[in-house]
């Protein structure tokens, strides 16, 4: 089925575009809108947005794939995004990633069978001071250890941890 931008989205988009001197400058905020609504940015959505902003499709795809914050497929209820850049790497991120892989029995890019967790390795989250860091949906969890991770996963599983999203 061809993807169509909803009227609601278009109204919002017009509003967002008006804030910028050029329409194409609204690309990032509009992608965030799309992801906010669907949880990810589908291939067809990129196409529709490219047409809407009169941008080449390749440009939109290039931007979506550049930022690890954009999901290109539906994720589980909790999207675990472990930073893999230098500060976190040195502070033990590879160990945390391995721990999560073993515990959830999935690798990066996969979702657990119960649809709860998706695991990703992402680029710098800008919180080097409290490395290692993991972002869950839109919340940060800092100075992590394996024990803290275990406790966090338990809480999330039982819905005990209120998240922004």
């Amino acid at each position: 089925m061809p993807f169509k931008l909803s009227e609601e989205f278009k109204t919002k988009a017009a509003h967002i575009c008006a804030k910028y001197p050029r329409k194409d400058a609204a690309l990032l905020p509009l992608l965030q809108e799309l992801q906010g609504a669907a949880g990810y940015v589908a291939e067809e959505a990129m196409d529709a947005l490219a047409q809407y902003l009169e941008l080449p499709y390749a440009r939109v795809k290039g931007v979506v794939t550049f930022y690890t914050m954009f999901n290109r497929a539906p994720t589980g209820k909790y999207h675990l995004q472990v930073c893999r850049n230098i500060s976190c790497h040195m502070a033990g991120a590879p160990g945390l990633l391995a721990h999560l892989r073993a515990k959830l029995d999935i690798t990066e890019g996969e979702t657990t069978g119960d649809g709860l967790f998706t695991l990703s390795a992402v680029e710098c989250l800008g919180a080097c001071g409290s490395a290692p860091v993991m972002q869950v949906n839109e919340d940060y969890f800092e100075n992590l250890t394996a024990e803290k991770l275990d406790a966090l996963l338990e809480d999330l599983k039982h819905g005990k941890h209120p998240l922004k999203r």
Partner: protein
Amino acid sequence: MPKLTIDGKTIEVAKGATLLEAAQQLGVYIPRYCYHPKLSVSGNCRMCMVEVKKAPKLVTACSTEAAEGMIVRTDTENVKNARRDVLEFLLINHPLDCPICDQAGECGLQDYYMEYSRAKSRFPQEEKVRRGKRRAVGPHLMLDNERCVLCTRCVRFCSEVTKTSELEVMERADHSYIDLKEGRALDNGYSLNIADICPVGAFTSRDFRFKQRVWFLKKTPTVCLGCATGCLTEVHHNENTVHRIVPRPNAETNTWLCDHGRMAYRAVQAGDRLAKGVIKNGLIDLEPALREVASRIDENHASAAVLGSPWLSVEDNAALARLAADALKTENFCFDFKAEQGIKDGILINQDPAPNTAGAALIRAGRGGLTLEEFARRVADGRIKVIVTEARAAAFIKDAVKAAGARLIVFATNKAEIPAGAYATLPYACYFETPGTFVNYQGLKRRAAPAVEAREGVKPLWAMVNKLAVYSGTSLRLDCAEDALKGIEF
């Protein structure tokens, strides 16, 4: 106009010129991947770094504007080390598949490695990041992402020159690769330029791949005859076979070359290339063919005519004019081809598909002749019964010929060119095999130079005309192409 010193030499350059351009003017070559004189500056490859006195670190020459009093060095240890380091980075994930890579011999990585690096890689083969190997993208190109250095020349070419924006860098960091929309073909009429500007073996030409190692190629500068733009080109050939055509950048017409023009060489070696005459549909040796044509002309002497062609050189058209005036002794000849001219796509392709409309006009200016309308009228009302012309030019009078049942005698290089219903066809050497002058839409005279030899027995058109005249009893005394030009303002 800033004045600066590069490697001890002083130069004054135009305001806005970059260090790389200033160095170029001095004859100092600075290595580069992403810089291209006709594309926007990207500054991403870092290969062009140079030392500027008082600057805290090296700067990229391609993106640094020349300023008054700058003292630049391109040959210090510091600069050489930087080049070596950049190369080491670029080669971390490179597959090093030169033995099977078609770019070998004209590869930016190979060339600079030999010049600046020659260092053993400190990165083990097993840990290389793998990317997509060769795959066809569009009718003309192969893309091998593992060899790409991400200079984005291809991306900028598509967005700035053809404005089709097919390509983009996808993902980031060491996952990055060049790609386009799934299912979309990279086919914008100029795609083969990407194979030229890609500094490595990532984009290669599907047509040229594995035909020839580039160091065997001989290069002949010539002109493209694909349309009235008349781009300057270079034909690459070896052992009497043409392998590819590339542009010869010049300020007047072209930096690039269209895909259509690049493929023009295929007709030279095509299976339907004519080496003999054709009478009706049967092949016949050249001499009997000429005799047959001459007798058809003789029996209709009063109603024989000559139509020049905007696809033929000035010299060959002049020879046809001599045939009309001195052998047929007729006023029924025409070198009048009017065509809308001008670049039609904003890049190179001309509205006029013929390469020499303006050259034919020179013949008309010197020798006169009928207008095309009058010529067609005389064919239609039967005053002209036999027409000697070139195969593609016959299309101009197609309807009249058909309506009146006139006899067409055409010169053609390939069987596919022969118009339906032609009575006789005589072969001639094309302009990859024989020289000729062409006048482009701007009035520039350009020489086509022979790159390969014609097949045995196949002669230039002027020589065929000379022979034909002898068969019908006159000598035109054409010993070379230029002989026909006497009396033509040229």
